[in-house]
């Protein structure tokens, strides 16, 4: 009985510890701002930020902006996943293509791609397509590289098991290579989607168009710091939604890693 109680405690303990630490930091920030250790004109009080939530929901149309950013993030995620994984598979299948392009793809992954937004503005115009394409461009390289790494890292013995059962090329890919590479592919997807989301909100902010990035821009211009920080919380919420979906997808595709 006591053993089961301690297990139950242990299961909840990390969550309680994490949530408690977060709450403690918020309370500390509130106290430091109130006693003047942190300048309230730079960082708003967490209590003010909380009070700003209903205001920005009612006055700034935040739910619609949240939807715009979420749709852009979702569209870019689909593009990044489909094109990135296909690209990684092609690089794995064709050695010449891999030799010719892998270094370039790695270089693109490290480049500050946000700087090409003026070019995309010219190509696609000041609209959601530019934002989605910026997210797609920024998130693509890590997915390609991690897909390639996952496929190349498949243990030789698993491939040999497939060969010993006389699998066709297609069976070898879908039954062995792809499931074996999935954990690494999902690492790439997580990285790619982080880059995509940063760029989506960043470009919304820069071109003052669309969802939450534009709202943050406007609120910052008005020096509405509690509102700005509250809007940033909604950006975090988009990120949480994308990652929860990704985690569920991974668990569905590969229940055990």
């Amino acid at each position, binding site marked *: 009985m006591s053993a089961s109680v301690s297990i139950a405690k242990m299961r909840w303990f990390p969550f309680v510890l994490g949530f408690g630490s977060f709450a403690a930091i918020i309370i500390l920030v509130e106290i430091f701002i109130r006693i003047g250790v942190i300048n309230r004109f730079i960082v708003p009080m967490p209590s003010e930020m909380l009070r700003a939530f209903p205001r920005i929901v009612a006055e700034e149309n935040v739910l619609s902006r949240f939807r715009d950013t979420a749709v852009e993030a979702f569209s870019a995620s689909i593009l990044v996943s489909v094109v990135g994984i296909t690209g990684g598979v092609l690089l794995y299948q064709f050695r010449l293509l891999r030799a010719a392009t892998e270094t370039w793809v790695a270089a693109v992954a490290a480049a500050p791609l946000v700087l090409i937004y003026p070019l995309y503005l010219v190509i696609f115009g000041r609209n959601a397509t530019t934002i989605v394409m910026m997210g797609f461009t920024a998130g693509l390289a890590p997915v390609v590289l991690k897909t390639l790494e996952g496929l190349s890292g498949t243990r030789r*013995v698993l491939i040999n098991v497939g060969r*010993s059962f*006389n699998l066709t090329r297609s069976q070898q890919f879908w039954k062995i290579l792809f*499931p074996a590479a999935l954990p690494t592919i999902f690492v790439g997807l997580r990285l790619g989607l982080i880059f995509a989301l940063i760029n989506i909100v960043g470009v919304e902010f820069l071109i003052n168009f669309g969802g939450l990035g534009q709202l943050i821009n406007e609120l910052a211009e008005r020096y509405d710091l509690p509102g700005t920080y509250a809007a940033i919380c909604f950006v975090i919420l988009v990120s949480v939604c994308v990652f929860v979906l990704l985690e569920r997808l991974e668990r569905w595709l590969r229940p*055990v890693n």
Partner: protein
Amino acid sequence: MSAATMPAGRSAADVPASAEPILVVRDIVKRFETPDGILTAVDHVSLTVAPGEFVGVIGPSGCGKSTLFNIIGGLLDGYDGTVRVADELIKGPHPSIGMIFQEESTFPWRTVIDNVAFPLEIAGLPKTERYERARHFVGLVGLNGFERRYPTELSGGMRQRVSMARTLAAEPKIMLMDEPFAALDEQTRLLLGDKVLQIQQQLKQTTLLITHNITEAVQLSDRILVMTYRPGKVKRIVDIHLPRPRTSEIVSSEAFGRYVAQIWSDLREEATRGLSEDEAKTLHGGAPA
């Protein structure tokens, strides 16, 4: 020790007289190109295996055992000689041959039952039928109750049994095993040997075991081919006249000890040569084989 002092031993030139061998390997020669020149890994190796027979191939590291395993299994090409199964020339992976590998080879993303059902899924069997058959083989290797577990939840010995059940589920004419228990401790190895003997007894499964473990080879085999260090040739064939059915208890018998001593006397010479050559190579700047 000469052949004359070993009543159970035969010279490499003797091909066992079996009425209808199911596996016939003739004059296999495999060479690899290396930075140091051409390396002959397997040199004119011939062997036959009769239906239901358990043949062991033993040799020191670097004698080409695994190369031979890959050639017979159809995973390696570019060799001279022929491999025939039931009179059919084999030139690649073949449904008649099932392989169990030295490394852990279960699919970590599949449960035990899904791993075992894998070859049946590839063969296109309906789901109900393939699970029914897979369950039979899971039971055969003693893993009842573990059907829904994933390989990460099992011990090394249990995972090797899953691999064995998966290979057996394909119902191959010949099962090839490449040091399947090499990564396991001695006690588990002996107990798994019991399991292999039990399955062998039950299915009359023709088996070719590649190993460097003398105890394992003598415990399981009807006949053992002792190979030389590089280039790998058959040095001697030893018939094991231990009674069947066997269990791991046989390792403490006097006759077992005699077979082990006999094979070790042949192997010792080869292993010593292999060690010396590796050390010399390392001394002169190359990597050991």
